[in-house]
């Protein structure tokens, strides 16, 4: 009779042999493409939970395909340690470069160091890392400037109404440097216009729709005269619409009781609300520009060319007056066509 341990050893031996064949196969493939130009780039996203990240992911995928490069993908679903594993897996697979969306500015530092140690160029899409000795390039929107410009437009609309407005801001996860930039941009735009806009509610959302809705419902109960709302991300707009409807304050621009509404990102919901006349303005991040810059940065770094540590996406503000003209550049408008 066969003893289980002997059987186990036999299976181990079989597995080892099969594995060796597998390794040999992958080495042959690598050798076959070693001299060729196409690169293999690992793309690791922290999440695909919002339209913005999906649009960014798809833009990178499409751009890489257009350039003839291969993409390996990984999404860590909000788990930092898992993302670290995924990047180490990319390194194991000998990628030529890595494009990373980290969870936050600090937890990505060991990930960047691992890529540095393996001599693999790493570029951060839309979320920069904290300053450290870890070397990376970040492609980010100028969150502060773009938010300031967007909110300045909203303030000018408030001025036109000729009465004082009570404002609420929905703040993102303050562990995310982008959320901090947007909050500071909002404050900078409001500063000096306090006679027109008074901030009565600052709602922490931690980038969570349920928290945003509950927070805004509470704020509208505490201050029913809120008539100016800015959200740090457009993906919270459905929560805002729901809270405004509940409070009987959801009216189109130009109608009595309209709440001045602004956002950031430029997603499909924002585009629809702009078209329907409920949203006054939103700051649009140029996803296609950011995707192209990330890929180009990886290529340049591999070629030994100098690349700045920070590449800025200037973005643009889209509002009722320039909607027709700018819609073609708005990624949310493109997504809504699909």
């Amino acid at each position, binding site marked *: 009779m066969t003893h289980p341990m002997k*059987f186990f050893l036999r299976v181990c031996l079989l597995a080892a042999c*099969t*594995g060796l064949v597998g*390794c040999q196969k992958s080495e042959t493939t690598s050798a076959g493409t070693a001299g060729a130009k196409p690169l293999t780039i690992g793309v690791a996203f922290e999440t695909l939970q919002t339209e913005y990240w999906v649009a960014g992911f798809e833009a990178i995928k499409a751009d890489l395909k257009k350039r003839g490069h291969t993409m390996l993908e990984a999404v860590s679903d909000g788990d930092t340690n898992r993302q670290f594993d995924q990047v180490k897996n990319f390194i194991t697979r000998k990628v030529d470069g890595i494009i990373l969306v980290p969870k936050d500015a600090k937890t990505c530092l060991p990930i960047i160091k691992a890529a540095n140690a393996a001599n693999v160029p790493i570029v951060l899409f839309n979320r920069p890392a904290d300053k450290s000795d870890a070397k990376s390039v970040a492609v980010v929107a100028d969150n502060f400037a773009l938010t300031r410009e967007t909110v300045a437009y909203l303030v000018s609309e408030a001025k036109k109404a000729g009465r004082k407005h009570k404002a609420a801001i929905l703040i993102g996860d303050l562990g995310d440097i982008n959320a901090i930039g947007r909050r500071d941009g909002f404050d900078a735009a409001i500063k000096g216009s306090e006679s027109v806009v008074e901030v009565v509610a600052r709602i922490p959302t931690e980038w969570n729709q349920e928290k945003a809705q509950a927070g805004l419902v509470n704020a509208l109960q505490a201050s029913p005269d809120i008539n100016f709302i800015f959200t740090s991300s457009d993906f919270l707009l459905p929560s805002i619409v729901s809270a405004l409807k509940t409070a009987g304050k959801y009216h189109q621009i130009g109608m009595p009781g309209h709440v001045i509404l602004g956002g950031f990102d430029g997603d499909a919901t924002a585009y629809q609300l702009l078209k329907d006349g409920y949203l006054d303005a939103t700051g649009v991040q140029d996803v296609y520009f950011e995707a192209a810059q990330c890929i180009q940065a990886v290529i340049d770094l591999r070629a030994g060319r100098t690349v700045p540590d920070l590449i800025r996406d200037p973005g643009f503000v889209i509002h009722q007056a320039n909607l027709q003209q700018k819609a073609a550049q708005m990624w949310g408008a493109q997504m809504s066509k699909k």
Partner: protein
Amino acid sequence: MSDAATARSWRATAARVLFSDYFVLWLCVVYVAVVAPFTPGFLTLENAGNLLATLLPLFVVALGQTLVLITGGIDLSVTSIIGLCSITGALAMNDDTGWLARSPMAMPVGAGVMLAAGALVGGFNGTAITRFRMPPFIVTLASMMGVSGAAVWLTQSKTINRLPDAFNALGGKTTIALVIALVVGISVHVMLSRSMFGRWLYAVGHNARTARVSGVPVNGVILGAYICSGVLAAVAAILYTGQAETGSPVLGQRILLDVIGATVIGGTSLFGGRGKVLWTLFGVLFLKLVDNSLNLLSLSLFTLTIVKGVVILLAALLDSLRTRLGPADR
């Protein structure tokens, strides 16, 4: 040997394999054999190192879950304990604002604070379950929410880095993490197989009423199991935080299914009275092999989640089958 005798011999071998302690390990080997030819870089030393680094913290936290499951309970708060311990340790140790910033005692005291925080939450869970006769599911679900909220409140969602290098090495250097996990694993194994407390854990899980009549201090045993679970979650937090070189209130938030999944796949019963350190190790290994191979295959998140779910379901189904068909004393 006749055909009939050969068939009998193979059937007997198959039965031994199916009902042996090493069943999940064999499942791992078969999985590797099937997947390796299609997965670039799977059978390399570098990948083995990566796999080990990710396996160790999950193994430690799953050991705590094993102890609680043996008593017939469940601990849903382990992931929140990891977040809370991560942030309390980082608050104590970080070089910028830590109470022990740049002190040579930062690492040992910081790690001690983390272990104490884990024991405290575990003690709370155990006390609520034994004193107030509340269901473990509700108690640990509530403490999962409360502890998670406390961790976020403590830092206002912020992460904390600039931790001492000596602390980061505990999780960041695989050899050190391996030693920690081995010490923990062997200690729990000895406790379960050689100590009175270990025998009491199984007795409580089999039948708490009978155990009480037989003189087992049931409440104390359950309390002890939850404290152990909290402490082991804190050890896992030390390893995870060291790997990330950052304290985060949401660290480990997404691994609850992996913890329970790995423990149950290993063969530990959700109904209590059954579980071993080795089984948990094999369950964790299987889950990590699946995770690692699917990542190396660069599957999309959606495909990966579906495939992982199906594989776990099949493994659990197989385990449930052998539990039903297997010998009663298994």
